[in-house]
């Protein structure tokens, strides 16, 4: 008889049946992907960022392909929190999975507005996006300066009813400084990495490949950078780390867990393999059985 394996992990008191969620913005609110993946299978669904009012996002083209990945500057197009609470949360509530709502804003007041409106909803965790490289105001401005990050974390934590996860930008000199600032301000967890700012030029059109000029690089090409940052951060703070950045296979997810991530998020891979999350969840369990690992916690941060 095979031994049962425990894949559940706990983040700030919220237990996920397995450590696999999705990276914000790569999965909508799960509606489109529910045609491919049983959402009940996921540890959690992390939604696309939602602001206090609808945002139209950036002009097109919004994406470009690169070797081993892509770049995007969608610009956080979203329907605003009121519609989101009416439509997206009730949809996700139908499934046996945890709900992580990604919150974006242009000012401290914007973030607070959204977080307050979410307080009476079924959202389990709030991920605060202070790292989007594609919006001009707010967003990353809060995520590239330890003092600004400390202040926004403190302000959000003061009003949030659910535990918060500060989502960190890799576009900084030392990501551990940012993680420590967020932890000092009381964040319950951190997630990393958001996309890495890049640029691509379309030589045939002799202009920028993405209309926003700069765009966030994601996909397997950035995975080693993400693993390194997750490793450094997991050693710098005590709060749980949710690791993401180019996870496309079981091996990628396990690397991130062994580097110190309590949970992992599949992002760009969803775009080219809509079954990626499901395959990785099965793959982690198979790996554990094959190697006699009875509890996923034996793997978290096992590589020192």
């Amino acid at each position, binding site marked *: 008889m095979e031994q049962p394996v425990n894949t559940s992990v706990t983040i700030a008191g919220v237990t996920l049946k397995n450590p696999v969620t999705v990276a914000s*913005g*790569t*999965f*909508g609110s799960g509606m*489109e*992907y529910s*045609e*491919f993946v049983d959402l009940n299978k996921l540890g959690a669904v992390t939604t*696309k960022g939602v602001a206090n009012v*609808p*945002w*139209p*996002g950036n002009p*097109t*083209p*919004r*994406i*470009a*392909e690169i*070797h*081993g*990945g*892509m770049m*995007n500057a*969608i610009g956080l*197009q*979203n*329907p*605003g929190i009121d*519609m989101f609470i009416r439509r997206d949360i009730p949809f996700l509530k139908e499934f046996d999975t945890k709900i992580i709502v990604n919150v974006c804003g242009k000012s401290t007041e914007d973030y607070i507005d959204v977080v307050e409106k979410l307080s009476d909803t079924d959202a389990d965790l709030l991920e605060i996006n202070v790292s989007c490289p594609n919006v001009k105001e707010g967003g990353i401005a809060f995520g590239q300066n330890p003092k600004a990050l400390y202040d926004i974390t403190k302000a959000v934590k003061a009003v949030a009813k659910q535990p918060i996860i500060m989502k960190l930008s890799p576009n900084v000199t030392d990501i551990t400084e940012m993680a420590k600032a967020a932890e000092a301000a009381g964040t319950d967890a951190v997630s990393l990495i958001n996309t890495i700012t890049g640029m691509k030029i379309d030589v045939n059109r002799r202009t920028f490949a993405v209309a926003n000029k700069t765009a966030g690089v994601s*996909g*397997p090409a950035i995975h080693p950078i993400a693993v390194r940052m997750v490793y450094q951060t997991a050693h710098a703070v005590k709060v749980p780390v949710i690791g993401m950045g180019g996870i496309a296979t079981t091996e990628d997810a396990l690397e991130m867990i062994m580097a110190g991530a309590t949970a992992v998020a599949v992002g*760009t891979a*969803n*775009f*080219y*393999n*809509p*079954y990626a999350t499901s395959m990785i969840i099965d793959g982690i369990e198979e790996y554990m059985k094959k190697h006699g690992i009875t509890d996923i916690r034996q793997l978290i941060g096992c590589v020192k």
Partner: protein
Amino acid sequence: MGKLKMEAAVLSQRQLAADIYSLVLKADEIAAQACAGQFISVYTGDGSRLLPRPISLCEIDRAAGTIRLVYRVVGFGTESFSRLKEGDRMDILGPLGNGFMKQQKKAILVGGGIGIPPMLQLAKELDCEKSIVLGYRDELFLNREFEPYGSVYISSEDGMHGVKGNVIDAIKEYGICGDILYACGPVPMLRGVKAYAAEHDISCQISMEEKMACGIGACLACVCQTTEVDGHSQVHNKRICKDGPVFDAGEVDL
């Protein structure tokens, strides 16, 4: 059944013109559900070129369980598709998007360049009087295949074939009229078609394209500006992959 990602077998491939290829795939599940105006995502099979290429369905044969793609080689992905031979396999996802809303009234079908292929399946599905207007840069392709389904009119930029100029020049030159217009092609052509339809007060459906990542409505990469507020984000951005690619011309700001 719904959309699905599957591995399809290549049944045949041939070149129709410079850079224009015709690929027939065995894909029962997709052929069974697809209709004119829908598209599929095609994957390169190269581990470093990850995003699918959206390609419209040129023909759907439900009985045979096959679909046909006619596409232009424009970059790495489409170039790799052009090298596939009978018996090779490729990953595809579909059927995607909403097809044309067929109305049984005197129709004008307009295709420009690589917007011509999806009009062939539409010509086959529409059971009414049809005028088919095909606009080319220079070399012709697929035009003979439209002939069984209606009167075919041609324009070419270089004037070597049909009317010198664009599809609107051909419509005017030949005095083509109808009660509904269906069109697929480059944006400047769609703009002309939309204006023509408005001027003559006839309904008009246009098929749009944009760079896509997911192809299923989640990533919000392929939006177009719309006159009405969209259902998804409450702004003015409909998703070409999910809400389109076919839109009522009046819905879209071109």
